[in-house]
């Protein structure tokens, strides 16, 4: 059977996008409830955020004028552990969008069995319009205003759209100053010097590579024989492709970035390409000068190449009804968030293409966030190789558990992942009981 998953659907750019996204998420959540036969009480609890905070954040601008920005922090669930989720700064941030993303974080943490619930936050602001001081004042005031619900054992923010390690450092410092003690565990995604983790930059790509290899092994295929195409050569695609080639011996035959792609059925010169990208930051693949052995292809052509594995690791909604029936890969690993539309997902399932869903495949980032938090709590810091080992173990365990659910219930991996996640959250709520 095919269960459409709890994923946001996009709508045209407007301020109501969050409302549509939340509605879709809740509708899909209901279909999972039905499969699990959850009781009404649990359904009601999981369907709603546990706590929401809206704050009016006044910031004195450099010209002396005070402007007030609206900020949010939504904690969807703390049933399985402290809430976890990013903070985004963007003009189009609204409460419904934050609610939906908080719910998705609960499920993402649950499917990988991290001891976290889900949260999300944001401020409706164009950060590029603020000066450095204004951005710092905005962040510090927002941090102070949501601090009553933050903490290493309550809610742990992380970077998201238009926020970065420096902003996380201000967050940590603000909380530490108010508490009168250093509290690195209050946020993740910090600079390494302030308790950030090694191994974060390639974490998502590494997780994608691990899921890919595990999927192939379970299908009885030797990764070394596999021809793989990767869409997107950013933080996810770049590392996924290189790790698959160097550590697992896969043959990367196609890659693309925003400028287009390169293809060679015998395998791409990945070392040379990686050196090119590393030494020419910002230069695109289209400007890579090959010796004539590579074909230049479009992003669309890359998706329909004759390959064994396709890894869309660029942007959302790339596999659609327009190309799903032309995908030739037998395995599709979702490196990006939401690269497959609902309708395309149905077509892929009908065609027997194995899809490793985003909620599982790209969980490497949040797993290393978890490892950062653990290191901060213990004041004991791991080498990059140790982080990679831990990441590998968590990813493998998660894959195994999702696979088992899919096998036992005879459902696809996406449905199994969401089912497992909701089941875990439901069980935690059930076992804890209702206070008082």
């Amino acid at each position, binding site marked *: 059977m095919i269960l459409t998953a709890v994923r946001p659907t996009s709508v045209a750019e407007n301020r109501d996008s969050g409302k549509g996204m939340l509605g879709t998420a809740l509708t899909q959540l209901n279909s999972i409830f039905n499969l699990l036969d959850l009781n009404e009480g649990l359904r009601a609890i999981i369907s709603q955020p546990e706590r929401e905070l809206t704050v009016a954040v006044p910031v004195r601008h450099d010209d002396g004028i005070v402007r007030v920005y609206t900020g949010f922090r939504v904690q969807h669930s703390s049933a399985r552990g402290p809430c976890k989720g990013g903070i985004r700064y963007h003009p189009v941030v609204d409460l419904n*969008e934050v609610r939906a993303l908080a719910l998705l974080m609960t499920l993402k943490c649950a499917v990988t069995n991290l001891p976290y619930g889900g949260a999300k936050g944001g401020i409706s602001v164009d950060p590029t319009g603020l000066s*450095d001081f204004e951005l710092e004042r905005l962040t510090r005031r927002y941090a102070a205003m949501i601090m009553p619900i933050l903490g290493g054992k309550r809610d742990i923010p992380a970077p998201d759209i238009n926020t970065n390690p420096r902003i996380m450092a201000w967050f940590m410092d603000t909380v530490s100053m108010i508490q009168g003690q250093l509290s690195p565990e209050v946020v993740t*995604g910090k600079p390494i010097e302030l308790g*950030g983790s090694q191994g974060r930059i390639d974490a998502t790509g590494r997780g994608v590579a691990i899921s890919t290899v595990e999927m192939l092994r379970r299908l009885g295929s030797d990764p070394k024989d596999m021809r793989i195409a990767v869409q997107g050569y*950013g933080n996810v695609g770049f590392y996924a492709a290189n790790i698959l080639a160097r550590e697992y011996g896969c043959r990367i035959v196609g890659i693309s970035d*925003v400028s287009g792609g390169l293809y060679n059925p015998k395998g791409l010169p990945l070392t040379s390409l990686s050196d090119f990208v590393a030494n020419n930051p910002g230069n695109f693949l289209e400007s890579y000068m090959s010796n004539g052995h590579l074909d230049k292809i479009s992003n669309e052509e890359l998706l329909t190449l004759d390959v064994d594995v396709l890894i869309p690791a*660029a*942007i959302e909604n790339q596999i659609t009804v327009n190309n799903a029936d032309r995908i030739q890969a037998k395995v599709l690993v979702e490196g990006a968030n939401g690269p497959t539309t609902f309708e395309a997902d149905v077509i892929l399932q009908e065609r027997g293409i194995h899809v490793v869903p985003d909620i599982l495949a790209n969980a490497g980032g949040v797993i290393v966030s978890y490892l950062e938090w653990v290191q901060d709590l213990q004041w004991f810091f791991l080498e990059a190789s140790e982080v990679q080992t831990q990441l590998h173990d968590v990813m493998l365990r998660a894959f195994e558990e999702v696979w088992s659910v899919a096998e036992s219930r005879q459902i696809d991996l996406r449905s199994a992942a969401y089912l497992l996640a909701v089941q875990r959250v439901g069980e935690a709520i059930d076992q804890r009981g209702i206070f008082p």
Partner: protein
Amino acid sequence: MYQDISVPESESQVERKQVSSLMEAAETIRENAIDLAREKMSFYEQEAELAILLERRNFVEYFKYALAQEVAQVIATYDQRVQAVYLFEETANPDAGTEDYLSVVDLTVHLLVKVTSASAALEAFVASVDRALTEVLHELPSNRFAKRTSYLNVIPITETDIEEGRGYAVLLSSIYARPLRIWERE
């Protein structure tokens, strides 16, 4: 009565004039962007030497944003079909977007340009602006700007692309990698 003895300009003369005005425009873009980025810095950093500022991530990020704004203006002034300009970053996954603090910022200005209809003329103009901008940015006192061969990644999109979610137009409804609108026609 005077006879008109002016000789029509040759094609190469016209081309040289165009190149020269593009170089001037690129220099203006660069200088305006430096000024705008300086304004964003704290008061004690504003007077710092440019070479020092260009080693600071926050300055470089503001500089890149200001470049984007200036380029958007130039493109929109050149072509009335341009309706709006958006700035986006290439990486889509927020979990992967937290590179180390001091790592190099992606200096490429990624722009989505919403147009009423696609045109080869706009693409050619953007390519010319990119060449001129690259040349004047090479003059900056920073190694990281010296070896680049391009700074602009401009993707024209139409209303139909947006409605049908074609290619990078899908970013306008993205939940995870949402662009910022930096210019819009009144």
